[in-house]
């Protein structure tokens, strides 16, 4: 049980489990409904391309806002004030990169995966191998990070063991994806986005009322903080400006290389709907990050007076749940327990929606790129490809569950999330952008670029100080926690170097094909009519 939160009784938090069962029951009904419609590979991987722009905007928000955003950023703001907010800014601005450079072009030129875009103009099998490596690296690290985070959170919020929490999360995730495919994944993400936004809005409004107004939120949080005025200024968390710029670049360009986000653009019928969906996502995500400020400051202003070390865990993840408990009436009261239980259930729904999105994107890369594209050379039937997707999802999911259970709470979550964003920004993003915009780009360039991006991002994170805690720090004296400022230019450089060293010019003619497809939607995959 959680010593922090299970104040109302022994062991399992019964109210939290009840509300949680309600949410999960709803998602299982969705999955049952979706399973009847999932009869082809286009249904399985793209929900028949029948999701509307507005629905997809909600689903993108549900896919993107992880428990790390919800609980983690509220905690970072609670602890570090301004520097906690710095994260949110990058997460939001990143969607301009997605909107301007990729969303519509991805919808127009891909079938199921990122690799489809590259394979229009590059040699198909190496291009699929390169893109699938990027997708699987990002999805694997992000998925394991989310699973470990899920275990820790569910354990703390509901009072069940870490291992059981991970296995439960994994089983529901696999049920959505394997039986309900992208349709169930999408609606789980939509339900999660609605629940998360509703709970956050209500909590933020109650906090602002309790504190006395939006400006009072700032002044009271500052006055409650031991840092005083420095709480509202930069510098409490990020002390190396180069590292902060590196982080920012990784966020702003990495989001545009996250396979589970890009895959969402294949689920809408047109490029216009893809565009609309990004705008909806920006509105929802922007509003959400503004409200997390109210939660973090509210926790500081309202709980900060009490003994902080005993109230909030060191990671800060429990700042928002603790705040909810306080607003509801305090620990031990019915209102307090109810609010806490609702936040716990919403956090769990948040995790489920994100991991389901990650599993289906990894399943697409395994089934569509590696198995059908590379092994079967595109000769698999539609039904075979759909079943390959289900088997791949099962495999990816089981590996993630096993690694999370064996690695346990000791796995460094921020290391893996950092790695996922760094690889997305340094390998996936350069290859995609150059394939769509640079006539000279060729297969060798894609292979060297993706290799440079993945290897440099992993190497620089392995030697970073965050991985070597304790006295010595990094073994080679490398003191950047975020590799982006080096690995992103290296990814682009690798694309350029491979291209100019190769005499292959065959992909230049096909550049016109890809560009006509991407810009006009000519030859784009159509929505499945029923």
């Amino acid at each position, binding site marked *: 049980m959680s010593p922090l939160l299970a104040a109302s009784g022994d062991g399992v938090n019964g109210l939290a489990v009840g509300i949680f069962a309600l949410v999960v029951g709803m998602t299982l009904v969705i999955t049952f409904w979706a399973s009847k419609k999932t009869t082809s590979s286009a249904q399985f991987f793209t929900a028949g391309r029948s999701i509307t722009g507005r629905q997809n905007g909600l689903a993108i928000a549900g896919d993107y806002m992880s428990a790390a955003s919800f609980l983690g950023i509220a905690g970072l703001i609670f602890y570090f004030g301004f520097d906690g907010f710095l994260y949110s800014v990058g997460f939001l601005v990143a969607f301009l990169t997605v909107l301007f450079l990729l969303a519509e072009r991805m919808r127009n030129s891909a079938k199921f995966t990122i690799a489809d875009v590259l394979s229009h103009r590059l040699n198909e099998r190496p291009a699929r191998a390169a893109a699938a490596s990027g997708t699987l690296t990002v999805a694997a690290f992000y998925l394991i990070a989310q699973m470990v985070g899920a275990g820790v959170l569910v354990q703390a919020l509901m009072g069940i063991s870490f291992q059981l929490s991970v296995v439960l999360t994994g089983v529901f995730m696999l049920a959505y994806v394997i039986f309900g495919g992208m349709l169930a994944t999408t609606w789980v993400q939509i339900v999660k986005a609605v629940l998360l936004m509703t709970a956050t809005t209500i909590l933020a409004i109650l906090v602002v009322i309790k504190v006395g107004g939006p400006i*009072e939120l700032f002044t009271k949080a500052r006055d409650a903080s031991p840092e005083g005025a420095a709480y509202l200024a930069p510098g409490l968390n990020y002390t190396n400006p180069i590292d902060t710029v590196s982080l920012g670049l990784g966020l702003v360009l990495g989001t545009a290389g996250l396979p589970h986000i890009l895959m969402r653009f294949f689920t809408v019928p047109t490029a216009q709907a893809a565009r609309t969906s990004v705008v909806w996502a920006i509105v929802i995500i922007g509003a959400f990050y503004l409200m997390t400020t109210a939660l973090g400051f509210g926790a500081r202003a309202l709980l900060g007076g009490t003994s902080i070390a005993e109230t909030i865990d060191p990671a800060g993840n429990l700042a928002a749940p603790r705040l909810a408990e306080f607003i509801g009436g305090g620990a031990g009261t019915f209102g307090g327990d109810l609010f806490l239980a609702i936040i716990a259930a919403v956090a769990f729904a948040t995790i489920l929606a994100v991991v389901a999105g990650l599993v289906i994107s990894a399943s697409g890369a395994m089934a569509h790129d590696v198995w059908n594209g590379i092994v079967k050379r595109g000769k698999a039937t539609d039904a075979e490809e759909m079943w390959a997707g289900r088997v791949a999802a099962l495999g990816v999911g089981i590996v993630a569950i096993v690694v999370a259970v064996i690695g346990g709470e000791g796995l460094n979550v921020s290391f893996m999330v950092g790695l996922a964003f760094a690889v997305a920004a340094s390998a996936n993003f350069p290859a995609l952008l150059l394939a769509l915009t640079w006539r000279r780009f060729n297969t060798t360039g894609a292979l060297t670029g993706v290799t440079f991006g993945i290897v440099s991002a992993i190497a620089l994170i392995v030697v970073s100080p965050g991985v070597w805690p304790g006295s010595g720090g990094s073994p080679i004296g490398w003191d950047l926690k975020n590799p982006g400022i080096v690995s992103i230019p290296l990814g682009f450089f690798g694309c350029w170097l491979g291209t100019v060293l190769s005499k292959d010019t065959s992909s230049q003619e096909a550049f016109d094909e890809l560009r006509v497809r991407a810009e006009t939607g000519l030859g784009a995959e159509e929505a499945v009519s029923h």
Partner: protein
Amino acid sequence: MAHPSATPPPPGGGPPPSGGPPASKDATWQQVSDTPEFQELVARKRAWIVPATAFFLFWYLLFILMAGYAEDFMGGEFLVDGITVGYAFALSQFVMTFVLALLYVRRSRDVFDPLRVRALQRAAEIANEPVPETALTDAAGVSGTAPGAPGTSGGPGTPGTDRDGGAR
């Protein structure tokens, strides 16, 4: 100009019958790419997207650099007690993101989408076949018509509409 209308669809998972130019693949993609309509579409988009991207990256990186190197300035009071210059700057990033996204949607609706429709009409002329209806409509819902069925709904008259409600 060639009119390769009788050629079969390109091999290897190419466009569905109603979609792409049913051409001797690269030749026709090339022809579409060479039309002034398509060139104008690409040029106009680039002329908007490149400066807009440069601007938001500049404004965002300036924010981060100031947070790193001008801590005292960023911690100074902005208009009212409690709001710092840093927070005002951070909020300007939110405003910038909303405004640029809406400007892009309006620009797409008013300029890029009509150009795209003209480029598609030229592409259809080159391929000597009717303009694919599904490529012209902007309906966000599932099109209920058979692919390639001429002009039962939507059509060239409604290129700029966004029935999904996202663009206001």
